[in-house]
């Protein structure tokens, strides 16, 4: 290839990706003394100077409404990203409705994500053993528990000790007190025997490692200029850079893992997004953390004589069993919350209370029409007004205009609540990604084609969500204002599972150390190794599992096994 520029230096480790998975790998490995080269496809990002916190929606175009370019609003931290990224297409097989979210920037999706930090429980690692569906993980909760401890202590998570079934408690900072609507919903939940407990978010309520506690402006999604919430750039990458062992290359779009004649990875080749030239980097170990599907794409595009179907893909399982989270949302109007004395409801960026799954025993006893659980996320309160504020007032007021209408619609402010169910999807044969035979992106890299299908387990679970939320709203004396259907695949942005880990090289891509069975110096630290996708949002588990994998890599380098 005439345009290949080789980088002369050989690193200990190349980490592809800078989000939750790449960030933790670089953090742990550089602190252990390894020389690491991190590749990020997007641009550099510094929340201290680039965060839009404290800005007013009314000073933004269209009152900061979401758009295709900025799906989560004008001030969302994501520089370049969304379900469509210019110049980086993907395709869907006929009959598939899949949306693939990517964030092209240092820190990836950690910059804007909801920071919900729930440990997977003992059942979640052995779902097949429990109900005969999906796959068990090759590790148990006890294997990962010490790393959950470390992860929570590093990123900073608040919560409370509750002792609930399959909902492990953690090393928590104190949780913030609930807002008015959350106290009301807690009361209703108690009545309905649904547990409603303080949420668990990666936002500091006490100072930690030089990071200040939250100042309660509620806009974590805009990125925090003082690192009071967790995001990879401030929490993982800055300390890694301070070791002197980390080199970060931005604008580096990874194309493939390169392989030697012995079948070991020799490094990666990437496209410099500015020059479109190919660059190769060499290392003893390659860690992929490009995000679940992007990691599968890199592996499938890494074809060689030794790996004709893509690197470490002798089983043909790379790209298979992709899962998202099941979502269904219901909105309601609670009259008891209308016309209250004005108060500042901001708090942290996100809910202060949530409902973990509570029907484990009923499911175990075969009394439920679907197999896996969901948790409930609560929204509401006197949020910063933006586009859409107080829309749909006729559903409560019947209609109107003029002074009386203005008075009434003002009273409605803060009385709308929102319930979002987030549930477990069981992996299935119809949900996978592969390389599209025809389409390439602007860098000349073949793109992914998606196949995706919900099974009855997910469809019936979403129905249960809708019914439950309607019941809660009704029990609070409210009216239902909107009922959302089951989410589209990829819409909840929790893709996991494209390179599953397992007990044997016959039926999995990775072993329990997230090490490729077919290529022992290739590791994965994003969500691609997940063998199941519990309703517990993946970032905390990515961090814990990535830490465990990185400890193993550091140990194996020391023992000269890599």
């Amino acid at each position, binding site marked *: 290839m005439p345009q290949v520029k080789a980088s002369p230096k050989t690193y200990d480790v190349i980490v592809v990706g800078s989000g939750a998975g790449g960030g933790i790998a670089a953090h742990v490995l550089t602190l252990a003394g390894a020389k690491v080269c991190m590749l990020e496809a997007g641009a550099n990002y510094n929340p201290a100077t680039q965060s839009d916190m404290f800005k007013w929606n009314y000073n933004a175009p269209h009152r900061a409404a979401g758009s295709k370019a900025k799906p989560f609003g004008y001030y969302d931290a994501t520089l370049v990203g969304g379900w469509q990224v210019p110049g980086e297409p993907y395709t869907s097989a006929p009959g598939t409705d899949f949306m693939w979210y990517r964030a092209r920037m240092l820190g990836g999706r950690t910059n804007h994500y909801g920071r919900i930090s729930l440990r997977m429980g003992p059942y979640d690692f052995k779902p097949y053993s429990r109900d005969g569906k999906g796959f068990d993980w090759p590790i148990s909760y006890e294997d990962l528990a010490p790393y959950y401890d470390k992860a929570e202590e590093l990123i900073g998570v608040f919560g409370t000790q509750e002792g609930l079934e399959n909902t492990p408690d953690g090393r928590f900072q104190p949780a913030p007190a609930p807002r008015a609507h959350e106290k009301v919903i807690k009361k209703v939940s108690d009545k309905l025997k649904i547990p409603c407990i303080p949420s668990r978010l990666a936002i500091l309520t006490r100072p930690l490692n030089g990071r200040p506690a939250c100042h309660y402006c509620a806009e974590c999604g805009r990125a925090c200029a003082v690192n009071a919430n967790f995001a990879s750039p401030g929490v993982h990458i800055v300390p890694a850079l301070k070791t002197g062992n980390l080199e970060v290359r931005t604008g580096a779009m990874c194309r493939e893992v390169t392989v030697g004649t012995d079948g070991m990875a020799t490094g990666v080749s990437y496209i410099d997004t500015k020059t479109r030239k190919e660059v190769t980097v060499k290392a003893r170990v390659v860690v992929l953390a490009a995000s679940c599907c992007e990691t599968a794409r890199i592996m499938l595009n890494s074809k060689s004589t030794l790996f004709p179907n893509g690197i470490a893909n002798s089983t043909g399982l790379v790209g298979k069993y992709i899962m998202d989270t099941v979502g269904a949302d219901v909105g309601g109007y609670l009259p008891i919350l209308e016309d209250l004395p004005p108060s500042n409801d901001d708090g942290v960026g996100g809910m202060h209370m949530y409902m973990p799954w509570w029907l484990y025993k009923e499911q175990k006893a075969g009394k439920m029409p679907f197999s896996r659980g969901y948790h409930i996320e609560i929204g509401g309160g006197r*949020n910063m007004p933006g586009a859409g504020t107080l829309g749909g007032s006729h559903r409560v007021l019947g209609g109107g205009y003029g002074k009386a209408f203005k008075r009434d619609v003002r009273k409605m402010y803060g009385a709308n609540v929102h319930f979002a169910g987030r549930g477990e999807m069981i992996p299935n044969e119809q949900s996978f990604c592969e390389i599209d035979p025809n389409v390439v992106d602007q860098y000349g890299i073949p793109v992914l084609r998606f196949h995706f299908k919900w099974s009855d387990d997910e469809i019936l679970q979403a129905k249960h969500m809708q019914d439950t939320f309607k019941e809660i709203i009704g029990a609070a004396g409210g009216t239902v204002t909107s009922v959302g259907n089951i989410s589209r695949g990829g819409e909840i942005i929790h893709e996991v599972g494209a390179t599953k880990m397992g007990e044997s090289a016959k039926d999995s891509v990775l072993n329990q150390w997230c090490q490729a069975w077919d290529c022992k110096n290739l590791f994965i630290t994003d969500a691609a190794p997940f063998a199941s996708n519990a309703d517990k949002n993946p970032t905390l588990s990515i961090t814990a599992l990535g830490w465990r994998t990185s400890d193993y890599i550091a140990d194996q380098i020391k023992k000269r096994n890599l």
Partner: protein
Amino acid sequence: MDVTRRNLFQILGAAPAVAAAQSQAEHAHPAPPAASAPAAYKRKIFDEHEWRTVHVLCDLIIPADEHSGSATSAGVPEFIDDWLDFRKHEDGDGNLAAGIQGGLAWLDQESTRLFQKDFAVAAPAQQTQILDRIAWPARASAADRRWASFFTRFRDLTVSGFFSSKTGVADLPYLGNKALSEWKGCDPKVWAVIEERMKNGYKSLAGEVKPWTD
């Protein structure tokens, strides 16, 4: 508890950064351009005649009262024109704008049929006579239903445009978007009102709410 930027400096370790971000956010943009200088706005959707009708309609929906100014004083016509243009690009079609413009045209047609005048220059009683037919969707006649849908959409645009403006934010009021040194949770004064309603029931905008039972 709210804190001034000066004592924020003493409270938070990294306060200078918080303060700097807050200060930057406050001063980076002056007043919203639409609110302070409506004349400077360049229309993208509405023509001169529609523009006049939009102003009249916005202020019929949200007039000035003892809390705040009217929809037009808060720049709502500019917001709506800009929003329709935005949706046109985002949605890949101009259907929302067309529906709004079609509804505005109907207001004129109906006003002319009844009063021989365009809607914007009809007498207030004549304007409300038409609006009363379409402002409560459930009460609208079968023939007026589509115009009630138009009015619902227009009212939602006016309401969200008004209450998300600087004027509307102060009217509600929204009291956040500032650095606090401490989070105390739900204000006891607020909770006292809620508990009183739970105990004795409450006559709400949506009707009578019965007392709560455990």
